[in-house]
């Protein structure tokens, strides 16, 4: 039996929100309100939304640096996300992480990791902890096609298979690792074959199709909750924008981009729902209008938020807020945001 599925119109609204948020982020980046690197997810929305729709809120999510959508999909507020991009104290990582390092403990979003492939071992650790504590949570580990040639990825997959850890490795194959196509980087006909090398069951899904992603993930996570094991999903998708804001993506043809745009995940789900009489054009316009407003409001919130205070510069280097030389620092308010530590009784030695 599949887990309770979230309302599809609600998920369409979420995809729209992610799209409009990122368009705003793009605009604010160009206006130099956002610094550093900024990698947009536009075009790939069905992957994370499909996965989130198929899983529980207390399942763990961890991803790479193209992470805005993963936080939003998990329920991090658009205000906190935009404020993070602006480097403000109200950001989801208090303005200390930036675009590539979104974290949200309350919503079980474990980052936001910017070294390609380096978070895949972390995902095995999250899954290890679930198994160690005999919990039935599943860890969803997202990464791009560029990560599959990193050593960390291979070591993590082997460990996950060896220890039978409850983790789904979701490769968001958007065909390009920065400017290098999969054909030029990977010695496989298809990425999913990497899983076979570790005896991990692998599946290919159409990453532009929300329903297909959701249904496949629901099937996989149900199986994992019954008996812990890792799984691998290659979600075939496409990013409409360059690798980051500074990339004009001249390594791709206009024709290729247009082909994928015609297959847009939002348009597709909208058409499905309209055809089935679950959504009118007016309702869609309302949803879109609302998404645009939320995105715009998030910019206002970010602009009006304060910078992280200089006096707190040393607060987060060590857990007790102490500096390296052991001098205590002022009490850190971040503590309030933390979840209560899991009770030791939960652990079954």
């Amino acid at each position: 039996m599949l887990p309770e599925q979230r309302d599809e119109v609600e998920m369409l609204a979420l995809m729209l929100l992610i799209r409009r948020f990122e368009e705003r982020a793009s605009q604010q980046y160009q206006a130099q309100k956002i610094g550093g690197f900024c990698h947009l997810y536009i075009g790939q929305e069905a992957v994370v939304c499909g996965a989130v729709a198929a899983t529980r809120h207390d399942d763990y999510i961890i991803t790479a640096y193209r992470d805005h959508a993963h936080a939003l999909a998990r329920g991090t507020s658009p205000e906190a996300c935009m404020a993070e991009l602006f480097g403000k104290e109200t950001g989801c990582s208090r303005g200390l992480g930036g675009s590539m390092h979104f974290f949200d403990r309350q919503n079980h979003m474990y980052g936001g990791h910017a070294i390609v492939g380096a978070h895949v071992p972390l995902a095995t650790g999250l899954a290890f902890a679930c198994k160690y504590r005999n919990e039935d949570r599943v860890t969803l580990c997202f990464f791009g096609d560029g990560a599959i040639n990193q050593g960390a990825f291979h070591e993590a997959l082997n460990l996950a298979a060896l220890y039978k850890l409850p983790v789904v490795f979701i490769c968001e194959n958007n065909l390009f690792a920065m400017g290098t196509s999969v054909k030029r980087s990977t010695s496989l006909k298809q990425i999913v074959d990497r899983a076979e090398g570790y005896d991990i069951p692998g599946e290919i899904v159409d990453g532009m199709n929300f329903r297909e992603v959701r249904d496949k993930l629901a099937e996989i996570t149900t199986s994992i909750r019954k008996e812990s094991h890792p799984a691998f999903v290659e979600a075939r998708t496409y990013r409409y924008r360059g690798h980051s804001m500074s990339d004009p993506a001249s390594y791709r043809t206009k024709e290729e981009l247009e082909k994928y745009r015609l297959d847009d995940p939002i348009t597709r789900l909208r058409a499905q729902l309209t055809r089935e009489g679950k959504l009118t054009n007016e309702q869609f316009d309302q949803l879109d209008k609302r998404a645009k407003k939320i995105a715009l409001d998030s910019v206002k919130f970010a602009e009006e938020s304060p910078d992280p205070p200089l006096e707190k510069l040393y607060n987060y280097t060590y857990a007790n807020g102490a500096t390296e030389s052991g001098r205590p620092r002022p009490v850190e308010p971040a503590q309030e945001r933390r979840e209560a530590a899991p009770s030791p009784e939960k652990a079954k030695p």
Partner: protein
Amino acid sequence: MREITYRQALNEALAEELERDPNVFLMGEEVAEYNGAYKVSQGLLDRFGPRRIIDTPISENGFAGLGVGAAMVGLRPIIEFMTFSFSLVAFDQVVNNAPNMLTMSGGQFNIPITFRGPNGPAHQLGATHSHATECLYANAPGLKVCTPATPRDAKGLLKTAVRDNNPVLVLEAELLYSSKGMVEPPDEELLIPLGQAEVKREGSDVSIICYAQTVPLALAAAQQLEEEDISAEIVDLRSIKPLDEKAIFDSVAKTHRVVIVEQDRPFCGVGAEVCYRIQKNVFDELDAPIMRVSQEDVPMPYNEKLEKAVLPNMDKLMAAVKKVCYV
């Protein structure tokens, strides 16, 4: 107090912490069925079972990262590197993931993890297996680094490391595993705070600042120096980070002459930092320029004679002491 080896002291520390906290587990290459490459985890698999004493494949990057991930959700992993020379394969996890997480997440995720294993040049292991990694890791904000030189310090520091809410590296002295020393009985809780140096021998003419494998060397030197009427104070740093500035400055204020003897390399080594802090804070106390004795700045040669020439040794230390004492 009873006499046990450095290896036994570490083993006791592991067992006591595993016993105390169900969130603690030990993971690494050969830690379980083989009972540890250096037998530090002897008997732990039998006692705690395969759920908590976990063998890994040779995948340092993978299992170090697994530990960091598990620590994100509140487990307290002890990750053993068969030697810290192999930790370089996991450098990204130890330096980029473990200590950065708390800042990057705006204070949401601290990483209570212990990385431990032998560190420093041993005996004719060649360039790849002889790294003294303390200066590399002490450079990363967010990490704590300790370097026990005696069985008592090994036990007390490892237990403290496991309880710390930050990533802590316990750099064990490979050549000292079989050395013996007095340690409190097992029923007496032994915790030694990080960032606390210890004067291992009182003296008045010169401070010899040392840690890990250079502590026995410094103590032996002090005995020889006594015969030449030079009274050496031996300050064992025990922790590289946090660094116990007060203990260092107190000793300098007493003797006014300093030799730093370290097991790492000269360029950006631990001694360079200690030296900087002394001249910055207690310059007026110094009666002579500070001397450093470290490795030579070359990859470690295999040949036994050449290796001895590269390492800090008694001749170099004695010469440095005499130089700062102007004798």
